[in-house]
């Protein structure tokens, strides 16, 4: 039983972290139609911010303020939000494919900064000894407690975003996504709404990044595997149903299960192939992405399904 | 030659045409007029395969062509000139004509000559990009492009739309010339009066259905038509 729990708890924790990422992306793409391929920039910024805020300074690398965990999380969200505000202000007016390229650019630049500005980030050596709240890493129950923290945050983000989606604000976002001209004609400040959604989604991505850092205990520009994080999240969202918060979580769980299984399988590979495990998994991401587009582009829980539920709920409450 | 029998169809499952019929006999010029939204352009697009026909049949020279793809319809010697965006703007006039003749494998220089004779100003400007021309000249290029396959039936969608009144006259004259060369013409037009003056026969369409059809002169003298379209 110990062995199984030992495997399941990290599994659920990572699934939860990816669920938060998917929820953030859903806010940007599913709800508002903003195409962000630079997810890793916001998650990475969040991870580094939280690490720098909560770490105790060491002899090797001096930066670290030793602040408590919640401050770290909030700081992560704030920095990610500010980055998104800056990026969004420049690029939010762009067409979908231009925005995509611009967000790749942001991802690249953040990666370069993390790598080269060693005075702030310790460069390629990364930051270690990022600790956990309540029960420190290594102590009994630490994993379990941390998992619960992550799951609570997933729930919180989900409830918040669901509320937002069904609110008048959410309706305006969807109107903007579907028909910009009509929304503009109705007097809505399209740019402002999109920016709000972009920033909100990015803040949540920053949160996910911070959660990652505290879980793993070590972050570096390479450890933050852009390919994996950005594209896995996209696969998760498309598979689960973009436009759909429940779908985002479901997609995260399903795809993470497939991904973890592949990690187990490549673990069994003979040594020569094992070093290629990363490439095999990247291949898997690519294939999944294409399969999901060819066969499931509406997703497991489609937007239509969600809308039916909303209408039924409205009717039942006499609305 | 062309027989459209009681067709229903439209875009995305919504019917715009609710039982339209018309015919074009060899050598005729037939005009379709009617208020906006009546389905005039839609009929033409249905003949050319750009709009799905749900019910009813279309046949050309005794053979059925309902719901054929546009390039298949073109191969049957029917060519179509859309109302807007009907030229390749960055290509020269000569290249536009080349594109019209794309599916031909023979020497078509005689046809190019014919088009230049019909529209002399195009010969003069043939090395200029088509997008730099005036509205009337662009229409000429569009029509010239469609003539490159020597079609037996030419479909024209509002050829004088957006043209200055002085040019409208010339345009109609050129269309008449094309008809005189033996090309049957089915034309949708807003300039009802002028179009009917030239046409052999006309169809009046309202809300996707036939309203009146008669010969050109008769329609011109028809009181109802006059009230609806000819400004009284």
């Amino acid at each position: 039983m110990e062995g199984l729990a030992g495997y399941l708890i990290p599994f659920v924790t990572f699934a939860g972290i990816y669920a938060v990422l998917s929820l953030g992306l859903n806010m940007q793409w599913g709800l508002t139609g903003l195409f962000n391929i630079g997810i890793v920039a916001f998650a990475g910024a969040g991870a580094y911010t939280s690490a720098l805020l909560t770490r105790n300074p060491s002899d090797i690398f001096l930066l670290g303020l030793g602040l408590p965990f919640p401050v770290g999380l909030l700081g992560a969200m704030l920095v990610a939000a500010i980055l998104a505000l800056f990026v969004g202000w420049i690029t939010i007016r762009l067409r979908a494919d231009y925005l995509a390229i611009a967000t790749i650019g942001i991802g690249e630049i953040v990666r370069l900064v993390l790598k080269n500005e060693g005075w702030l980030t310790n460069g390629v050596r990364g930051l270690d000894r990022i600790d956990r709240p309540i029960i420190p890493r290594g102590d009994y129950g630490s994993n379990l407690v941390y998992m619960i923290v992550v799951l609570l945050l997933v729930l919180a983000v989900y409830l918040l975003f669901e509320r937002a989606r069904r609110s008048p604000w959410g309706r305006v976002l969807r109107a903007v996504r579907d028909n910009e001209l009509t929304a503009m004609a109705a007097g809505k400040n399209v740019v402002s709404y999109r920016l709000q959604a972009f920033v909100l989604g990015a803040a949540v991505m920053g949160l996910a990044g911070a959660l990652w850092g505290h879980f793993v205990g070590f972050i570096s520009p390479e450890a933050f595997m852009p390919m994996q994080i950005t594209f896995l999240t996209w696969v998760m969202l498309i598979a689960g149903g973009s436009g759909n918060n429940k779908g985002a979580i479901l997609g995260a769980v399903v795809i993470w299960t497939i991904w973890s299984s592949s990690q187990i399988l490549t673990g069994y590979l003979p040594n020569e192939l094992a070093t290629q495990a990363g490439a095999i998994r990247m291949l898997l991401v690519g294939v999944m992405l294409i399969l999901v587009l060819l066969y499931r582009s509406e997703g497991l829980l489609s937007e239509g399904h969600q809308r039916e539920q909303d209408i039924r709920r409205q009717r039942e409450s006499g609305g | 030659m062309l027989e459209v029998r009681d067709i229903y169809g439209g875009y995305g499952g919504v019917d715009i045409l609710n039982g339209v019929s018309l015919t074009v006999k060899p050598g005729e010029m037939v005009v379709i007029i009617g208020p906006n939204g009546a389905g005039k352009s839609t009929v033409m697009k249905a003949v050319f395969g750009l709009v799905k026909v749900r019910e009813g049949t279309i046949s050309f020279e005794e053979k059925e062509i309902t719901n054929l793809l546009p390039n298949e319809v073109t191969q049957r010697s029917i060519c179509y000139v859309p109302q807007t965006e009907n030229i390749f703007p960055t290509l020269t006039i000569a290249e536009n004509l080349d594109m019209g003749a794309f599916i031909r494998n023979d020497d078509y220089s005689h046809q190019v000559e014919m088009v230049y004779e019909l529209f002399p100003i195009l010969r003069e400007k043939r090395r200029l990009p088509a997008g730099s021309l005036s509205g009337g000249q662009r229409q000429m290029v569009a029509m010239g492009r469609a003539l490159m396959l020597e079609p037996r039936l030419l479909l024209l969608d509002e050829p004088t739309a957006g043209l200055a009144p002085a040019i409208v006259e010339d345009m109609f004259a050129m269309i008449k010339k094309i008809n005189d060369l033996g090309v049957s013409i089915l034309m949708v037009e807003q300039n009802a009066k002028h179009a009917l003056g030239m046409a052999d026969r006309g169809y009046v369409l309202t809300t996707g259905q036939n309203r009146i059809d008669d010969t050109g002169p008769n329609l011109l003298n028809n009181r109802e038509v006059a009230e609806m379209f000819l400004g009284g």
Partner: protein
Amino acid sequence: MAEILQLLIFGVVLGSILALGAVGLSLVYGILRFAHFAHGDLMTLGAYFALTLIVSLQLPFFLALPVSAAATILVALLADKLVYRPLRRTQPVILLIASVGIALILRSAIQLIWGSRVHTYGQGIQMPYRIADITIKPDHILIVVGSIALITAMHFFLKNTKIGKAMRAMSDNRDLAQVTGIDTDRIILWTWGIGILLASCGGMFLALDTQLHPVIGWRLLLPIFAAAILGGIGRPYGAIAGGLVIGLAQELSTLAISPAYKPAVAFALMVVVLIVRPKGIFAGRSI
């Protein structure tokens, strides 16, 4: 002064490679109507096919070039048939994401087949030409001349052949091209052919100038897009100028900022263009 001239030379070399990529990208964008994110990795693939031909089969570079290009084109056509074709009717963004998937597959396949260590074409030490204080490697001349030759050939093709004109027609007005009876499927095959011919050669030139490793193409994707956007995306001739501008800008920027941030220069230029003149700096002129 000499330093600036030297950087100018590097800039022209890089710019030529970027131009080869950007022109192909613009062709695909104009005719197939989507941003092809696998373009960089196809460049990498071309470079790696050449690696096998040159190192394992001992072919000289000049022969490896066309053979590798042909192989890369086949891969692109396969991707088109299996993935892009079924998705032709969907939104451009879906095709963009699909091309990202293809890019990942290509990159990982390259790593699996050829490994992730660095390779070179092993052409031996070259004696550079020295003029005053500037050095020019013979490879640099090969790259620039080769790029000019390829682009001139493409220009001739677009201007004078039936298929070339049809490609320009489709780029202008796809619906009208179909109405005219042009076989759009065939034109699409030719578009891939020419676009990927240029891209794979660009990849081989890049590997010749630097080194081979699995992400060289992907790293170039951002500057290539920047070049294409600068020239007006969908306009192959604009892309040539765009490539040179980005190449020169990136190299000259090292006078002021750290070389590690070179990609940031391309990105910054691109963002400026997107905000100020989204149609590209040559807006208003025809192909």
